[in-house]
């Protein structure tokens, strides 16, 4: 959770992409940004959309907390490309699992899975508007 907040806070530019087909590889453990050499086309986020993702995904109330996890594989269909402070990070989004996963250059640097069920309808609507 803290690492997601840090990644969003440190980012200077925000891009978004959609996987052409569900990303099964994204369920893997110990992934790094080096595991994603060929990202789908990345669209720069508008200031309003960037603000939406930073605000909602930095808020602890957006996540299911208390150590709860789903028995559901993390198959991503979208991702945010966060660049800044000399580092590139990916915040993968799975609309199937209603969760996010942070990928950094350090295989131990990412969080496992953040379940965004409380805000998922808003996130899905925003993604729908961006990729309309």
């Amino acid at each position, binding site marked *: 959770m803290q690492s997601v907040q840090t990644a969003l806070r440190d980012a200077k530019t925000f891009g978004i992409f959609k996987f052409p087909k569900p990303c099964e590889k994204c369920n893997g453990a110990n992934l790094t940004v080096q595991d994603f050499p060929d990202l789908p086309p990345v669209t720069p986020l508008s200031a309003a959309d960037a603000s939406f993702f930073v605000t909602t995904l930095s808020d602890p109330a957006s996540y*299911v*907390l*208390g*150590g*709860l*996890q*789903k*028995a*559901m594989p993390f198959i991503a269909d979208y991702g945010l490309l966060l660049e800044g402070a000399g580092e590139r990070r990916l915040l993968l989004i799975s609309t199937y699992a209603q969760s996010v996963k942070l990928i950094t250059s350090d295989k131990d640097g990412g969080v496992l899975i953040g379940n965004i069920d409380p805000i998922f309808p808003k996130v899905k609507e925003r993604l729908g508007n961006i990729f309309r």
Partner: protein
Amino acid sequence: MFGKLAAVLLVCVLCGSGPAYSQTLHVISVADSNDGPIGAGTAANSKALQNYATLVATLTKLSLSFTSVSGDKFNCTEILKSVADLQAKPNDVIIFYYSGHGFAPESDPSRPGMAATSQFPWFYCNPPDSRPNLEAISRELKAKGARLVITVADTCNVILPVAETPLAAKGVIEERIRAMFLNYKGSILITSSKRGQYSWYYPSGGIFTAKFFQLLRDPPDIDHSKLWDAILENAREKIMVSSPGQQPIIQQPEIPIPELVFSR
């Protein structure tokens, strides 16, 4: 000659009317214990199952055969092999328990392009083209001819963080557990959430599994012929998954009316 024949007949009679300890409780415990988010929870499920199976074997004098598919062995091939390799006798009891990721595909993985017909989940294991379906596993186990088959999955299709209930020392509860595993014939199929719902885990185990084993360890005070009905009716109730500061999430197990026959 007559003496030899009598001896053979005596052995056959003893085999045929064998006491409970000549029967086997086969348990297959599948746990994706190496998984990052839920590995610890699935391992806890498997431990709870092993403890319960040991208790049942002790109370019923059933011989316990426990097969674990977990850690580096967790894959579709090993799961299917553990089911295929199981050999049961007519009075045996089989418990299959899956703890891991699951999903409900739009089309049947084994029949591309055909809509998935099962309301029960598929297991998320590799290789992808041999991912098993819970209902198909249940059918295969029923075909083994055992007296009682219980097939359960705690997977997505939500864990009450409760401590394992110690078995009351009262002989009456032990008697109910004996009845559950010695006096019933048929099959039970259970998955921890309805199609379209998530199943939730704490590091201490699956929320459904914690509730289910609490029910199995403390069967209700009811006529023995209604024990499984009562347990499953309770297990079928909605589970409210609480997250700090948020509305509870609902997980409702899918448990069809079982095909069971009770005999005293």
